[in-house]
């Protein structure tokens, strides 16, 4: 069923922005087409147009050479186009199976009435997951799953349509290495069947592993397409940014000797136990570990998002056992959660409001504040992070994924913290923005501010940190110095039990 997906002069305008500017691209069946570009380039917008979720301002879409009009996601499904979105679109209160088959639950007749055929629902959902070679209980509530597992459900949902076109918008940004491998296997199988695959990613190192062609967009414009076999990393980066400066880890970066945060015997039932470590002044301390190792839970507990039930945290000469986010903020701790949509941003509020969220008290005098005053803070942060957006008064939801992530980090910079807890801060951001975040960590380090940095991308940890703790099954199992081992070695240490 070799199929072809094309656009002709697609243009999409938003108030104040042109997200896509006369883009004409073509994707053939049987190949994996990587779609790349920096944050806000227009990748997600293009995908949403193919998915029928967003209407183009002008231009045409063609499927197999025939013009089609996709007024709604339903129209797109009818054309066999399925999408895995960047921001999750699952219903947390429903089971995995219901989410996968949402709107298409099989029914059966009982006494003349049509009722949901539950055994069939579970069986069919399980079949989809089996086809993907993942094991996940289809009866579990999606809200109870972690990010990676939710991502798998999202992919399973798209797969269940038996699509002839499937688009992935940064599917691996929440996945660990072995899960990524499974996904790649799946994608290759699909491609072999002639399915058109459009694949968006910021992880350029994935491209040689999975992509057949790379298509680059920049600032809403189509820059070009290259066969992966011919493209080198340099040419790709050149196409994405024009020019890019790779920042080197500064040589003068030293961690202090004065402890700022001490964690003693910290435990949370079923999540982690007996965690001990010390974070020094100006240190960038990484935590490496697989999904489910308890690293996110540990960070959340340190910030008081969840209570811990054993041990203590010593910070600023004070020992705390009962923590709340507002107390930790007052003690100089900042926290960027892994799930920006649910936990970090107020989607309907403006970028300005979100950037000021954590430092309202600081910005105001005696509780009074004005937009003008907030704007000067916001402008400074926007410049420091180079957030790309038309207007800080627009809802933060209108920013591209990567730019939203920058807002999440940005809102804490204004609180003048002592320690920042970063949970996957580089999720979904482009190479250049990643460098900016690293640069921020290093700058903070120079100012004596420490970072605790959790990331699934081990390369990042090796590049940025002074020291890396290894976490497994809820406990810390040793520490390593970057520079003394390779990514592969670190990976092995995180995986295996010695």
């Amino acid at each position, binding site marked *: 069923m070799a199929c072809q997906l094309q656009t002709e002069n697609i243009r999409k*305008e938003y*108030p*104040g*922005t*042109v997200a896509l500017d006369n883009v004409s691209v073509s994707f053939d069946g049987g190949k994996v087409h990587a779609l790349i570009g920096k944050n806000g380039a227009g990748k997600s917008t293009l995908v949403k147009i193919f998915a029928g979720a*967003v209407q183009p301002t002008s231009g045409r879409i063609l499927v197999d050479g025939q013009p089609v009009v996709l007024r709604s996601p339903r129209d797109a499904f009818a054309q066999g186009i399925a999408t895995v979105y960047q921001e999750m679109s699952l219903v947390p209160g429903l089971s995995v199976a219901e989410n996968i088959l949402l709107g298409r639950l099989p029914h059966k007749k009982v006494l003349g009435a049509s009722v949901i055929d539950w055994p069939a629902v579970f069986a069919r959902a399980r079949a989809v997951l089996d086809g993907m070679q993942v094991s996940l209980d289809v009866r579990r509530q999606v809200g109870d799953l972690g990010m990676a597992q939710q991502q798998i459900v999202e992919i399973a949902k798209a797969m269940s349509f038996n699509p002839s076109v499937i688009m992935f918008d940064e599917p691996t940004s929440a996945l660990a290495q072995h899960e990524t491998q499974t996904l790649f296997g799946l994608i290759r199988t699909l491609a072999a069947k002639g399915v058109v695959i459009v694949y968006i990613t910021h992880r350029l190192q994935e491209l040689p592993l999975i992509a057949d062609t790379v298509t680059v967009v920049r*600032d*809403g414009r189509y820059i070009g397409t290259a066969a992966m076999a011919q493209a080198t990393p340099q040419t790709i980066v050149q196409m994405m940014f024009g020019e890019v400066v790779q920042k080197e880890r500064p040589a003068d970066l030293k961690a202090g000797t004065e402890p700022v945060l001490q964690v003693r015997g910290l435990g949370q039932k079923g999540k982690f136990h007996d965690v001990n470590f010390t974070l020094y002044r100006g240190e960038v301390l990484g935590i490496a570990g697989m999904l489910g190792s308890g690293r996110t839970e540990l960070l959340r507990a340190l*910030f008081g*998002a969840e209570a811990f039930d054993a041990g203590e945290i010593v910070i600023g000469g004070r020992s705390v056992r009962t923590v709340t*986010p*507002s107390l*930790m*903020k*007052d003690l100089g701790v900042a*926290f960027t*959660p892994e799930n920006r949509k*649910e*936990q*970090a*941003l*107020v*989607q*309907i*509020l403006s970028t300005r*409001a979100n950037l*000021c*969220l*954590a430092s*309202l*008290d600081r*910005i*105001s005098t005696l*509780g*009074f*504040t*004005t937009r003008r005053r907030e704007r000067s803070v916001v402008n400074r942060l926007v410049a420091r992070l180079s957030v790309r957006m*038309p207007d800080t008064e627009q809802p933060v939801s209108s920013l591209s994924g990567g730019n939203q992530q920058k807002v999440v980090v940005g*809102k804490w910079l204004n*609180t003048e913290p002592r320690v920042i807890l970063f949970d996957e801060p580089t999720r979904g951001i482009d190479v250049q923005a990643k460098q900016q975040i690293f640069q921020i960590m290093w700058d903070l380090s120079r100012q004596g501010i420490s970072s605790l940095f959790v990331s699934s991308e081990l390369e990042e940890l090796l590049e940025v940190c002074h020291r890396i703790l290894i976490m497994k099954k809820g406990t810390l199992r040793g520490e390593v110095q970057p520079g003394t081992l390779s990514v592969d070695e670190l990976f092995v240490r995180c995986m295996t039990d010695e």
Partner: protein
Amino acid sequence: MPPLESGSRVRALLRNSVMEIVLLALCIFLAFRADGFLSMQNFLNVLRTASFRGMIALGMTMVIIAGEIDLSVGSMVAFSGCLAAWLTGYLAGPACGMSLGSAVTLSIVASVLAALGIGCITGFLRVRFEVPTFITTLAWMSVLRGSASLITKGFPLTPFPEWYNFIGGGYLLGIPFPAIIFIASFAIIQVLMSYTSFGRAVYAVGGNAEAARLSGIKVYQVKVLVMAIVAGLAALSGIMQSAQIMSGSHKTAEGWELEVISAVIIGGTSLMGGVGRVWGTLIGVVFLGVLVNGMTLMSIDEYWQPVVRGALILGAVLINLAPSSRK
């Protein structure tokens, strides 16, 4: 990224002021068709009538923006009026023998404090035990109305001195006293919501309570405070109402909760939380006031009023949704 031409700016402005334009159109229509609409006397009357509900609507705006609701405000109006009346009678009566002046003052203070306490309890139950405010205030709605009947034993209480009427029916510098309180409340709440960090926190909590909490905002404070504020405003309104009718009656303000919520919604505040404007509520309140006044002046059957109000709520919501749903 070439910027778009202006002109969309003007359109945006028009789109954001739909209710203002509709209100203006209604006033122009009534000026021509309803005799006596354009007189100063009529204007002040509309303002006075609207003020009692209007003050509560201001507080309700904060509550709804914070993602909560208060269904007990009508009962609170009746309860606080009755409580003030009963207390006044008791304190000035033979048992205590206070002067009428101090008895009235003390009763007012006590009623407002009681209301603040009740609001705090609702907020506390919300944050501590996650009881939805819909449920708690539904319970209060019944409890407070019933308590008002118990206090008054079913008959209006009339212990108030002549001058007490001033706070509900009097004029200050030619303006009805309740209207002055209403305008003052408007100014305070407008400032609170637009120019304080508390106001920003209310929006954040209503928009995404978890993100607000993880930004170190004290979510419980916000929720407790907004519930207390709306209850306090309802009590003030109840006191002024009792002064206007010079008695505490358990039958006052029946169905007000829905009228108040209507005004807030007509003003563009979203029941989903996180979105809304105090100014919009002011427009909504005036709108409903003018509409009822116009219908009365044009001697339209009063049974039409609820029908028109209902249609209006739906219309306003559709208008407010129109720009965002055209994605």
